């Protein structure tokens, strides 16, 4: 049984607000659905909103990291937004640092980070240097 997670298309990006408690196989299904949407819409950005997610364990943490690297291979940058402070502290205890993941406090910040990430990529292609904040 998979509880559908809404995937919204907003401009060049897609936004995934996770509102249900995901178990392992539903997390995998969601990952596939996200990749499908990126392929269909040619999205350049992916925002995963985890503000309603009460716990991120090693499996869900890995799914988030993997989804971001897969999206990257498809040409989309990923920002995970809204991680709760309890979740963050627990992730560190768990030993999961998620250092390669772009994160932001909320969706709004997530969008501005995405803008910088995608513009710095096109900037680099054109040989234009952009501000350093855009890299992480």
């Amino acid at each position, binding site marked *: 049984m998979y509880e559908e997670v809404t995937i919204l298309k907003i401009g060049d990006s897609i936004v995934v607000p996770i509102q249900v*408690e995901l178990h392992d196989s539903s997390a995998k299904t969601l990952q596939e659905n996200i990749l499908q949407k990126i392929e269909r819409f040619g999205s350049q950005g992916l925002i995963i909103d985890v503000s309603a997610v*009460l*716990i991120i*364990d090693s*499996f869900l943490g890995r799914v988030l990291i993997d989804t971001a690297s897969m999206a990257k291979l498809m040409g989309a940058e990923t920002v995970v937004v809204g991680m709760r402070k309890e979740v963050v502290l627990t992730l560190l*205890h768990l030993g999961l640092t998620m250092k390669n993941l772009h994160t932001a406090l909320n969706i709004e910040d997530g969008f501005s980070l995405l803008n910088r990430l995608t513009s710095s990529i096109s900037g680099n292609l054109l040989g234009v240097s952009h501000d350093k904040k855009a890299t992480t």
Partner: protein
Amino acid sequence: MIKKPQLNNKPVKPDNSNLIPIANFENVILGRQRVREMMNSLGFSLLDQTRIVTAVSELARNIVVHAGGCGEMIISAIEKNNKKGIECIFKDQGKGIADVNMALQKGFSTSNSLGLGLSGAKNLCQEFEINSVVGKGTQVTIREWVKR
């Protein structure tokens, strides 16, 4: 007119004990929810709840992944020296762990995972005990006490 069954007509559960068979990932979610409910009623902080429920998630998943879902978890409210706490026992009839110390090392995995489950769960709770017999199964007990 047919009377609707009363909503609170559920069979009375034993006050402080709860057994949940862990056969699949949905049971893991149920176990997580039960632990959260009990911790909430015992007065644990949100951070403590998040920490322990994460450990519970790792240990219950181990039953599904490594013991083929042949196992159960038992949640109990406990008390010692006027301190309240929660105890969760994870029992499985899987193939057991040959080298427990190795399995507890960060990054050790036999299932192509990150290898943070068992070591992470140990780091996340105040008390952690593991007993494993090859061919028989594994039992993990975690305990957490309400801080005052």
